[in-house]
């Protein structure tokens, strides 16, 4: 067993796990907020530019020595990056993640430049990592323990938009 096995939710049966956003999203149309919390994430330390990004993986470079790898197989990815001389830590449980829609919604929750994503910065006053997908879909990752309230802020902000989607 790896010395850090206790960090990895992938080490136990999926039915034992619950997303931190379950309560906040009860009765909410998943088209408005899609829960991505239990998707695999790996926190990278070291020369992040040197890692090989696999099929279906996404690398968010945070600084010269820090990055976040979004991957379906965190355990495999960790083995891979460690073999490459970097350090990787399972961050699946660390961050709550969700997808939302609309530039105006985003502008009401972050002052990050929406044309310069991905980036790390404040979202609803919380340290976040924000990515932009095609069109006006955005993905947001925040500390797990703040996820519930951040989603409440998102829903509240949706409700205040002139055109509620």
């Amino acid at each position, binding site marked *: *067993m790896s*010395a*850090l*096995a*206790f*960090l*990895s*939710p992938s*080490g*136990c*049966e999926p039915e*034992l*796990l*619950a*997303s*931190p956003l379950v*309560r906040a999203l009860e009765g909410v149309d998943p088209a408005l907020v899609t829960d991505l*919390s*239990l998707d695999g994430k790996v*926190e990278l*330390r*070291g020369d992040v530019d040197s890692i090989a990004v696999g099929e279906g993986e996404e690398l968010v470079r945070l600084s010269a020595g820090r990055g976040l790898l979004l991957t379906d197989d965190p355990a495999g990815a960790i083995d891979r990056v460690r073999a490459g001389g970097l*350090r990787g*830590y*399972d*961050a*699946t*449980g*660390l*961050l709550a993640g969700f997808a939302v829609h609309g530039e*105006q919604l985003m*502008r*009401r929750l*972050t*002052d990050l*430049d929406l044309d310069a994503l991905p980036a790390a910065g404040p979202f*609803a*006053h*919380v340290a976040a990592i924000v990515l932009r997908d095609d069109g006006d879909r955005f993905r947001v990752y925040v*500390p*797990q*323990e*703040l996820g*519930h*309230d*951040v989603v*409440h*802020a998102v829903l*509240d*902000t949706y409700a*205040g938009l002139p055109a509620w989607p």
Partner: protein
Amino acid sequence: MKRKEMRLAPREGERIDRSREVSFFFDGWRVTGFEGDTLGSAVAASGRQVFSRSFKYHRPRGLYCCSGHCPNCLMTVDGVPNVRVCVEPIREGAVAAAQNVVGGLNTDLMSAVDKFGGPFTPVGFYYRTMIRPRRMWPLYEKFLRNAAGLGRVDERRGSSRRYDTEHRRARVLVVGGGPAGREAALAAATEGPDVVLVDESLALAGTQLDGVEVLTPARALGIWEGNLVPVEFGTTMLRFRAERIVVATGALEQPLVHPGNDLLGVMLPGAARKLVRDYSVKPGETAIVIGSDAEALSVVGDLEEAGVEIVRVLDLRDGRPRDLEAQGWKGRLRRVLIDGHRIDCAVLVASSGRQPAYSLLAQAGARIEYDGALGAFVPTELPAGVEAVGAVTGRGLERTDSTPAYGGHGKCFVCICEDVTTKDVKRAIAEGFDSIELAKRYTTVTMGPCQGKLCQLPSIKLYAQQVNAYEAELGTTTARPPWAPVEMGLLAGRNHEMARRTSLHFRHEEAGARMMWAGPWKRPYAYGDHPEREVQAVHESLGVIDVSTLGKLLVEGPDAAGFLERLYPNRFADMAPGRIRYGVLTSDGGRIMDDGTVARLADDLYYVTTTSTGADAVTAWFEWWNAVWGYDVDIVNVTGALAALNLAGPLAREALARLVEDPDDVSAEEFRYLDARQIDVAGVPCLALRIGFVGELGYELHFPSPAGEHIWDALVAGGARPFGLEPQRILRLEKGHIIVGQDTDSESNLLSSGMSWLPKLDKDDFVGKWAVEHFGEREEREKLVGFRMEENVVPAEGAQIVIEGYPVGRITSARRSELVGEVIGLAWVPPERADPGTRFEVRVERRMVGARVMHGAFFDPAGERMRA
């Protein structure tokens, strides 16, 4: 007096839609206007003149600027105080209520102040007259609090409006939509995208400019560092960051300061023009026009077109009259005296010229200088990234004639917001307030709702005249944001107060926990009203507490041991993998910062826990020191990644054994006190730490936070009773365990806190080593000790310890322990009182109660139970 409809026949260019009537309530009366009206214009059209009562003298006041600048039309609309109804769009069913009146607008009982109060309420009267006798202060205070401020917040309605904040970016942000602003915006649009123009008036509604986003009515409230411009846009605050800001705020018409200049019917040219052109409202039947520039005098054309009889036009450029006084009856203008000639009229349209509206530029860092040729203050030396165009630069303006120097008898207002007269200013100067900044604070000129827009220039001119100085020497008072009054709700935005919640939060709520704030976290205080029963469960059988809030850090790398050795007073290099030590972090000043456990998981991997509120600070502290030292280690804050549960009580081992594959893994021999082991619990990989903060056999299980509820359910099903923070505080106190930040403060060090065994002074270096060495050379001023009360009363945390009448120490924690059978606690006492058995007294509920110093744990001092 009979009211007369003042609405004119339909005119070219009017902004109202006569096909759509809109009704609302004004001071209790139903008023009907048209779509496109403001509340103010509709009221004016109905022939009503009184909109408010003045701040101090309760004089009736009416539309004066019609631009949202002056205080005259402030009303409470639908529960929102201080709405400028002259620019508030009309809406069906709105209720506009008068402020600052007792009774109604036309019958304000407080208006007696105007007749009789004058001699008794000079400027600054409350500084002098309301001091003695002292016992009267409560009454004075009540009176002053009542009189101060305008409008009342309706606390029940306070949250009925929604306010949002939106972050925006612009390459070029143009403030002001006059000709110069529009031209600048169009020019900027030819150079690229992201050009935004904001204008505070309703006049630009529907305007299309090619390549420019036009926002109106939208008011720029200030310019902050980094070209941050908050813009009030309805109930949304737009926080603009602009690469370039073009200020085109134009110039503000300045009042003419003469006796009677606040009477109903006296107004600025811009107000008269707006009433006629935009709303087709006739300002009155007869008018006198006085101005010092072509702009002001051109209002004559508008008035004539509206059928107003112009009885006199006075061009101040041809020379100013010696005497000029407006006279009225019951606050309404009746006639104007010009050098002895009485001229009857209903309206006096007067201005002394225009002053550049430089406030935003001044906030941005521009210099404001007096331009002698213009007789006004102009902005110079603009900061990088900020430009000015149009009248705000002073270009195109004519010389002002704003010095208040007209003879006459009535009250002559320099400042209509605060009811300050020329006499008040002269008195202040006579009393020695001869600096403009001091005089501002003493007289409160420029401190009212208009924030100097209409009174800055005249008051400085009056000052210059009185103290015989040049305006350029006096300068202006500092321009501060906001540029215009703004609702507090808009500044506050949405209330998104974030709580950190563990992954077990809802299990606690379901179990009936009373949740409390613990730093940034929400945690259970207790499950029900009997914390002592939860304590009992831990002592007698089994309890479980959610400690996911503990900070959790990984320190990994070849230098991990060396790094921690240098950061902590403790020694960690000699620990075997799988072992745990208690660690305390100190600063180089020797102060205790945080504490927790340090487990070695592998040669180059340590797992560090911190206090619940310390995770972020400790992470930053670690990372900072490593930025300085440059060790080959990585520091990863995994606090949120892991849930943590402390399973504690004599039955802990049996309960855990039922949830693991091989019960031998948790046997007393295999899993010793202060061991750290990875085990699967209920199918989840856990790091189990055998530590004893609460004094009983216990396992702290750290595991992936998404599995929190699963493990919790398994432990509760296995017989563990949930316990909250309050029982934990009792339990740890029974053991004499301190809580950093509760029992220690920013002055506490390792020696005074009774941990002189902890620092390893034989190490070459550690953060705080030198301080500990120096502390060792002198006697501590106080020491942290345990105590037991002689009576069954619980002193407050922070209660004073008194010896021979002198306060010598304080209580940091105290609780009743059923197990010990006494009230026990921790306290700071002088060293000479720190020996076991020493008696001291504590103030509890206004009397002194005895207590005795006690060292070590109150319960199981040898720690046999937690080591079992």
